[in-house]
């Protein structure tokens, strides 16, 4: 039966069912967003109109973390319709309940007090005519001064100011008949107080990382973005676990086709459980036989927001301190969040170093094998002599020698990850002894090979992305084998296949090898980072609604 199946598999025709999606990468797709109404919108006196406006601006139908709470407010014995607007996860619910809602809703001395007793400021009687100076009643002042026991409260008359407060964790109170709203400071978002990012350490950037709670993570995004155009859509994945996920994007920047594609993929997962962002990344990415990551994974909210503002889509998974960012191109895995905090000259230097590291991590052992086996003439005579002298006492062929060392190193690396941290340093000592000294003394490997393996290992550590580094570590073995089989011919054909496969890959409709393969005039896409004042454009391959992210002359102070 198996033989029959095997033969059927070979000779049968199976139609090609591949899901294809591509983003247009021309400037025509940029939508004109110049007509956006940027004028300051005044707050309306009607609560219903205010609510409609809030619904539109915050996309309440799809935004999951925006909360509006309508209630009846008691003031001076009268009742007014009121509305509270805040972002879930960014306010302190206890303060909101005890010091905002309760004083306003519950009947108490303050709000039942009609104020008639204190209305008269002064009274004068002249010719039996009593003249009273009466204080004009002002509901807004009354609420601010008497009803809300908060230390930081402001009256604002434009939506822009109110939304800015709400986005930064305040709560807004709208009251029917009033053309102002209150911006009440009840911030209460959770912040990681102890831990810094463990995997993406930067020197000059913020030291905050995502945590396991999705709401805390969305609040971090909100706080960094500070803009009502950030959409956070909630959905559940997994028939059993029903894990909460959030698809986040800037609605005025991102390409809508991209959002639709992400939501399409995320909503069409038929799985029992989803426990981490890593699993989601695999589930929504196209397959590739190279095992290259097709989504950026970050634990840094500032990095996530940077991508968000570039026009990418972020997916958060409850229980996972990582954000999945799509689409991703190859260069993204050679960049670090630190690059943006450094001057471009330093950032470019580091990026070049990382590029060289990637080259070494992938090819150095393979090149060593092919040079020592086939292309000795490339080595200067002195170096050739020292290599031959070092290899004199080694009984194994170079392929055996290098594979032993590479596998030993991988074992040590894996062991150091698995052992309890208390004995972690022991692994380092054992590894150094085994790799560094004992292997050479025993005549199993040559000292020059130790240098090659060490440089390769260090290079793989210099790659910022763990998955990408993993890919290089694995494919290094293939190039070692090709180098041993046919020298530079093997490496050359292997590289050709490798480059072709990378050029064939796409991440959410974006070519993985952009910008070096398409040879188009793409903006802000290369490995080389321009100076900060020159980063005017968003990456063109994302086909965002807003092409520019800063004015042509961003440093206006220089021109004045």
């Amino acid at each position, binding site marked *: 039966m198996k033989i029959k199946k095997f033969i059927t598999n070979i000779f049968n*025709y199976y*139609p*090609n069912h591949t899901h*294809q*999606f*591509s*983003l*247009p990468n021309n400037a025509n797709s940029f939508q004109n967003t110049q007509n956006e109404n940027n004028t300051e919108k005044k707050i309306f006196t009607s609560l219903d109109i205010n609510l409609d406006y809030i619904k539109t601006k915050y996309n309440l139908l799809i935004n999951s973390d925006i909360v509006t709470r309508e209630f009846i407010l008691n003031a001076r014995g009268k009742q007014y319709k009121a509305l509270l607007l805040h972002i879930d996860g960014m306010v302190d619910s206890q303060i909101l309940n005890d010091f905002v809602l309760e004083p306003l809703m519950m009947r108490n001395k303050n709000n039942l007090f009609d104020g008639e007793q204190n209305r008269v400021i002064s009274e004068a009687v002249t010719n039996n005519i009593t003249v009273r100076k009466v204080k004009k009643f002002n509901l807004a002042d009354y609420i601010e001064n008497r009803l809300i026991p908060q230390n930081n409260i402001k009256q604002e008359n434009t939506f822009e100011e109110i939304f800015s407060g709400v986005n930064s964790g305040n709560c807004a109170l709208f009251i029917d008949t009033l053309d102002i709203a209150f911006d009440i400071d009840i911030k209460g978002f959770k912040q990681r107080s102890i831990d810094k990012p463990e995997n993406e350490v930067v020197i000059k950037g913020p030291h905050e990382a995502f945590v396991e709670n999705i709401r805390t993570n969305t609040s971090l995004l909100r706080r960094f973005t500070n803009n009502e155009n950030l959409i956070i859509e909630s959905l559940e994945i997994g028939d059993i676990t029903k894990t909460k996920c959030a698809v986040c994007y800037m609605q005025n920047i991102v390409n809508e086709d991209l959002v639709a594609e992400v939501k399409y993929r995320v909503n069409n997962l038929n799985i029992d459980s989803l426990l981490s962002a890593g699993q989601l990344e695999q589930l929504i990415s196209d397959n590739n036989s190279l095992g290259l990551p097709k989504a950026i994974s970050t634990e840094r909210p500032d990095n996530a927001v940077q991508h968000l503002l570039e026009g990418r889509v972020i997916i958060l998974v409850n229980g996972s301190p990582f954000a999945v960012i799509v689409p991703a191109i190859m260069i993204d895995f050679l960049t670090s969040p630190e690059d943006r905090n450094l001057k471009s000259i330093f950032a470019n230097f580091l990026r070049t170093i990382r590029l060289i590291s990637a080259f070494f991590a992938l090819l150095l052992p393979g090149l060593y094998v092919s*040079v020592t086996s*086939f*292309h000795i*003439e*490339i080595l*200067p005579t002195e170096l050739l002599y020292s290599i031959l002298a070092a290899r004199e006492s080694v009984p194994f062929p170079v392929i055996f020698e290098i594979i032993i060392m590479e596998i030993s190193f991988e074992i040590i690396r894996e062991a150091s990850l698995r052992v309890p941290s208390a004995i972690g340093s022991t692994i380092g000592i054992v590894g150094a002894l085994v790799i560094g000294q004992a292997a050479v003394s025993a005549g199993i490997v040559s000292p020059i090979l130790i240098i090659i393996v060490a440089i390769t290992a260090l290079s793989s550590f210099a790659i910022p992305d763990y998955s990408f580094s993993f890919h290089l570590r694995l494919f290094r073995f293939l190039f070692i084998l090709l180098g041993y089989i*046919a*020298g*530079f*011919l*093997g*490496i*050359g*054909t*292997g*590289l*050709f*296949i490798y*480059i*072709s*496969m990378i*050029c*064939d890959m796409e991440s959410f409709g974006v*070519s993985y*090898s952009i910008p*070096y*393969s*398409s*040879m*188009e005039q793409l903006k802000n896409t290369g490995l080389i980072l321009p100076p900060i004042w020159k980063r005017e454009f968003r990456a063109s391959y994302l086909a965002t609604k807003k092409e520019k992210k800063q004015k042509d002359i961003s440093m206006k102070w220089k021109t004045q």
Partner: protein
Amino acid sequence: MTKQKISTVSAVMLTLSIVVSYITSSLPRTFINETKSATLLNIIYITMIVLFIILLFCKLLKKFPGLDLLDISKFLGGNTLRNIVGTLFIAYFIISSSIMLRNFCEGLVVVYYPLTNYIFIILMFIISIALTNRLGFQSTINTASIVFPLVLISAILLFCGNLDNFSFRKIYPVLGDGAYNTFVLGLKNIGAFGGICYLYFLPPMLKEPEKLKKIAIISVISTGFFILLCVGTLLFMFSFFTTTDEIMPLFSAARHIEFGTFFQRFESVFLLIWIISFCCYLSISCKFATHIFNKMLNLSDMRPILNIFIILIFAISLLPKNYAVSNFVETHIYRYLRIAVGFILGMTILILANFKKRKVGDKH
């Protein structure tokens, strides 16, 4: 959902990738053999002629915007002519790839793998194109765009690195064996621009088909410059009597590069780049053959028959008995094939189609 198309620069890279394969094998030798010290003059002359032909080609294509040679053949002589032209071009792509592959591999055997049977070396290339042929057309175009700049750098490095070894007097006598040899017999070298016959099939694939003229002109000029650079290196370095004996002349030139005592003998690095570029050429030819076949038969899925072309390339490359035969085929037959198919066949169809278009007006 939009299907990706070829950008202007990528199209230029594509045509240039074709010429790299010619350059790394026997083309410089043929040039120098035939026109001696007038080689550079001949290259400039040939470039200008090809430029004129390509302008004519663009003018003829103007009446068929966005159509390739197959569509134009169909317009001219129906499906029958389309299939004949398609078959001829498929045969041309397959045969040219096979001959070039065999010669390149024979060269590799001589310079690096004297103990290895050439079949194994051919197999390395065959496996690589068999694997990449399953990928999209865009992948090949993108790969060519990445690889060609490396090849160009290697050619410039080859030129600059050998400056010390140059003797510029070797261009004298300027007319070589005489004006007749340079300008009349030298016309045979027009086949070096065989890469432009791929342009016949590009229009429907271009992102901006209206830029075909620009692509064609840049391709011709760049090809001319590239050939000039590589052949110039050889001409200035070696006596043209010794150069003719070299199997891979550029490889021999690479051996002489040295920067101080430490950086010497870098020819294998050049070879690495040329191998990748040669794989690109094979892949492009194979993809074009597949594309034409697909268009002729209107197939929705090419996967089941992809390997047929690769097996054909492999089989044809084994046909010559030895290097002498394959070299004879390349220098004495293939160059005329390039002219016949690349220039005469394509241009004839275009001219006739234009006549027909003029005759029947815009009814079609």
